[in-house]
């Protein structure tokens, strides 16, 4: 009898544990869909972009052009046999990603004071987001529908990390703003991740 009771108790315990595990799993599925959330993905992509952009700006362009004066960086880098500007470096990367056709996210660099007018905010999300990140200095997240497709859209402040950034913009003939300084938010990085199928 004692033996039977023990057997029953073990089965009950196993049942409770199994039920609890199943319940926990169900709860997990309900609370967070599997995979990486668009925001985590956008933040991760931006972390890489920002790191590479800062390294190139500080340790290649600013060091070689502004400090050691070894080589210039130029918008017309091919003609002038010069370094690619940090913004061009960023855009070239974005274009290569787009051309690869391997991924569906896209990214770009925009500003309220763009040297090239094509890079001023166009969509409502860009306009609101840029105003917000300029005010708060923090990232901004929203969703938007463009061309019939829904996107998770994230904007991150793009900051003047070195004198090369603000001196070039302040002196550029097409810059609408000529008083940028170190640490200013000069624009924003926009990352778009398509939602749904």
């Amino acid at each position: 009898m004692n033996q039977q009771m023990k057997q029953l108790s073990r089965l009950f315990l196993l049942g409770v544990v199994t039920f609890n595990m199943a319940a926990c799993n169900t709860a997990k599925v309900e609370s967070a869909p599997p995979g990486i959330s668009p925001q985590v993905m956008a933040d991760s992509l931006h972390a890489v972009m920002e790191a590479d952009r800062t390294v190139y700006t500080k340790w290649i362009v600013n060091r070689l052009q502004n400090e050691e004066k070894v080589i210039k960086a130029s918008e017309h880098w091919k003609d002038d046999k010069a370094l690619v500007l940090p913004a061009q470096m960023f855009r070239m990367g974005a274009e290569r990603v787009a051309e690869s056709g391997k991924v569906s996210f896209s990214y770009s660099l925009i500003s309220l004071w763009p040297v090239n007018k094509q890079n001023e905010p166009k969509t409502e999300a860009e306009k609101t987001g840029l105003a917000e990140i300029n005010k708060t200095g923090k990232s901004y997240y929203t969703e938007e529908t463009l061309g019939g497709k829904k996107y998770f859209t994230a904007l991150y402040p793009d900051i003047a990390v070195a004198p090369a950034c603000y001196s070039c913009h302040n002196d550029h003939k097409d810059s609408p703003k000529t008083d940028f300084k170190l640490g200013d938010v000069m624009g924003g990085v926009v990352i778009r991740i398509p939602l749904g199928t």
Partner: protein
Amino acid sequence: MSIAMAVYFGLKLSGEDQSIYLVGETTHGHHQIEMACTLCHKKAFGGAGVLQDACISCHGEEMKLVEDSHPKSKFTDPRNAERVAKLDARFCVTCHREHRPHMSGPMGVTLPQDFCFLCHADIAKDRPSHKDLPFETCASGGCHNFHDNRALYEDFLLKHSDEPDMLPIQKVAIRKKTSPVRPVSNRPLTPLTEAEADASFEMKADVHLMAEWSGTAHAKNGVNCSDCHTVKNQETGLEAWENTPNEHACKTCHDTQVKGFLSGKHGMRLASDLPAMTPNIAKARMKDDAGEKAMGCVSCHGAHAFDTRKAAVDACLVCHDDEHSRAYETSPHFVLFRNEAADSEKAGSGVSCASCHMPRFVHREEGVDQVQVQHNQSWNLRPNEKMIREVCLNCHGLRFSMDALADVALIKGNFSEKPRRHIESIDWAKKRVFEKKKKQEEGRGESSRSL
């Protein structure tokens, strides 16, 4: 009736003559290969995507090299979705539709010429000089191109704004004697004598032929008869003597040049596995007696003499008979060419047909600068502003070059006078920059006063 039609079209589909399926005349760019339907229509279904792959397979490399101002990646960015809805520039066929002769304009563009308006309607806000300019003049006025703006962008205009009509040094690049990239064999490139020629006894008896060969860079660099005349049979893999080797033999050493030739209008039919181009199928005006001369390397270079000077003028004028070509020999460019040939002017001063239409270009290969001839004569032909950087600016200032290329009558007369048209791009660029700088300086002055 239906069965009869099905049998008829079925037989046509499998036959060589597929002209029944040609739905409309093709443009000057594609008419030579219009009967090779599957070059563009690689699949029966798939729409613009399939055609796009075909466009890119022939034109993609050029688009990259000319730093296309409107690459596809600009339009795949979702932020430009609104623009794509107006003009789907992700696909070449949005602007360049084939088989629509009634709609085709310059460069095979089938859109109304004012299409820039669709995205740049507010240009006058940023460029007051453009206020009231009709949008159909953006690309037709000599100021902008949709794809290639390497000689037209504002900073380039400014950089070259003060150049005189004639530059102090007027000179085209000199071809390097060592232009073949790959040697024909492992033998040393030592000169060969006529006695060392490895052709048959009968051929060696041809005094004229032997004299032509022995005077060439081929003989001087150890390229013997068998190096060109021994051809491998593609099916059997066996090598045998070939009396009339084709471009495949030339390619062994001159692969860049042959690639260029096959990309242009002289060689595009061969590249498409069609019989060679002949002058009688050209759209441009050709001499009546040029008729059915099949275009290959030797049709311009000659089979054994390979006289590049002849290839640069005489060979062209054997076939080409348009007003511009006919006027060449009365032009100042020809005088320079003749004087260089007579050694009364320095090397690189002559201007032949090839100087402009098959220009020499410098490209770096494994760290070494090579000067080669662009054998794709369509490379810089249209729009003609593509000639500015690689051709005109060797001798002329930018302002003069832009004006000359916009003067249709001047081109017809082969540049025998000064340009009568003036393109205002440089003037406007200078004025805009002057005003901008002034405004910025005033702004800085005001902010320092307020501090």
